[in-house]
């Protein structure tokens, strides 16, 4: 290690410290340089708000995919957020600490299940169930929402538990001392105090739902149209990229990178909001 002097090491580390931000900029640069010229040429309004996606005919409107992404994400949140937050509250406030300490890592472990496995189970179990119960093709908005809803559960539970645990014990003791039940304490004291952390967990989960690709391709059916009901097949922004990338050339390919630009912007916005929500409460360490 005499290779670098003390100063050399510091300079080297300073350089390395920029690796993550350089990676981010490099990614943004390449996605935008492929996608933005297309958006400029085609027109942002036509790209974002037209419903015609006919690459062979030179029509590239991603409105149905934006709407689909929105619905699938909201559906996933509608399923995953209540379940996840309820689980977090139950485990922290109504269960003995050792139980929580055992269950939380188990749930976090499950966050590692590859998304293709979720997608496969969606195709094998969920889609046939939806088809036989409600009709329609089974591969649908509903199927995608449910699969994503389950996928985001570990994220919601884990971060919500951290947020609820961070609420000072004295808050609870004060409330209980005033004669409130545990539930009243949870509802009126603990959860409101942990609100920003819980919201952050939901926004991060939204980011994951918006960005998920393989599981969605497998269960959503990928039809390009504005969904009329939850049983309709839909295509999300991510699915559009992954489905057609292999076959796309020229303008079509640029349009897919432009789809990537839209996705990038949406996810960045969500992450920034989540970051703000967390920071607002915790302050910087």
């Amino acid at each position, binding site marked *: 290690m005499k290779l670098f002097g003390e100063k050399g*090491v510091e300079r080297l580390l300073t350089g390395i410290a920029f690796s993550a931000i350089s990676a981010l900029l490099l990614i943004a640069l390449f*996605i935008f340089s492929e996608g933005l010229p297309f958006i400029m040429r085609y027109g942002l309004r036509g790209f974002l708000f037209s419903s015609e996606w006919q690459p062979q005919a030179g029509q590239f409107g991603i409105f149905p995919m934006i709407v689909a992404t929105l619905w699938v994400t909201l559906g996933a949140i509608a399923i995953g957020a209540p379940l996840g937050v309820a689980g977090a509250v139950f485990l922290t406030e109504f269960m003995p600490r050792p139980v929580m300490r055992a269950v939380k890592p188990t749930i976090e472990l499950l966050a590692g299940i590859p998304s293709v496995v979720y997608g496969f189970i969606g195709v094998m179990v969920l889609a046939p169930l939806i088809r036989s119960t409600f009709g329609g093709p089974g591969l649908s908005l509903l199927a995608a929402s449910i699969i994503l809803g389950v996928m985001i559960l570990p994220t919601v539970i884990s971060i919500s538990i951290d947020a609820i645990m961070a609420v000072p014990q004295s808050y609870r003791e004060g409330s209980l001392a005033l004669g409130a039940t545990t539930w009243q304490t949870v509802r009126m004291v603990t959860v409101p105090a942990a609100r920003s952390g819980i919201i952050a967990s939901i926004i991060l989960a939204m980011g994951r739902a918006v960005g998920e690709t393989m599981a969605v391709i497998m269960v959503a059916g990928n039809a390009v149209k504005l969904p009329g009901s939850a049983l309709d097949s839909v295509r999300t922004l991510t699915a559009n990229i992954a489905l057609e990338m292999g076959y796309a050339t020229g303008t079509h390919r640029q349009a897919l990178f432009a789809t990537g630009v839209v996705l990038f912007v949406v996810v960045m916005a969500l992450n920034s909001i989540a970051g703000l929500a967390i920071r607002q409460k915790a302050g910087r360490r």
Partner: protein
Amino acid sequence: MRILPKHTQRAAIAALGGATLLTLSLLVFIIVFVLEKGLPVLSLRFLFTNPQDMGRAGGIFPTLVGSVVLPLLAVAIATPLGVGTAVYLTEYTRESRLTRVIRFGTDCLAGIPSIIFGLFGFIFFVTTLRMGWSIISGGLTLAFMILPTIIRTTEEAVRAVPRAYREVSYSLGATRWQTVRRVILPNALPGIVTGVMLGVGRSIGETAAVIFTAGSSLRLPSSVFDSTRTMAVHFYILAREGISTENAYGTAAALVIAVLSVNLIAYWLMNRVMARRS
């Protein structure tokens, strides 16, 4: 009539407990479903023989190799960068606008969907740098993807090293780098390994970013410039294309076991770090 708090309490417990139970059973169902169907197929022979006929028959050996080599390459690239960043942030600088920018960048990078990493890797490594669909393209792309995880966990671990250790080291006349190298990094090692393991776990399970950068060749790679197929990609192709449901389940079981054991090791190490801190 007023509902007694005692009753709402009971109802709330029932509802919350039910939701928790549902959550746990859903997640457990997924594991059980995959293992139940996959374990009968899984054997050492399945893991270590070559596939035949696109994976319709035979084992998954080349994809096992892919799932070992690709994550290893990714962490080999990302670990020095991640640890370096974390050490810089904690030991070499004070909180400033600069550190905030670096942290914000790290958070943003962590949130980027894997399909975007795939697109980027394809246009940058595969096309622009002419690396082709290869282990090196895939490894570099995955390295970008797991960098934030390694930075964050290392930062946590480095912060968990007690102040006193540093003070003793400095008072003995050690330089900053000597302190980092001899005192801080050894003590933070379990935490660093946790981050690395989490990165490995994520790399093993990744599909979207890998399929666009490392390709999907089923042949055993002979160098890092060859294309490879990981277990996750193999499973995706087997299941999607209906090549062999049986082998798909077998691959899925191998995949899930691999990811869960890697993550398990990571959490076990993380617990040790946490225990020391408190």
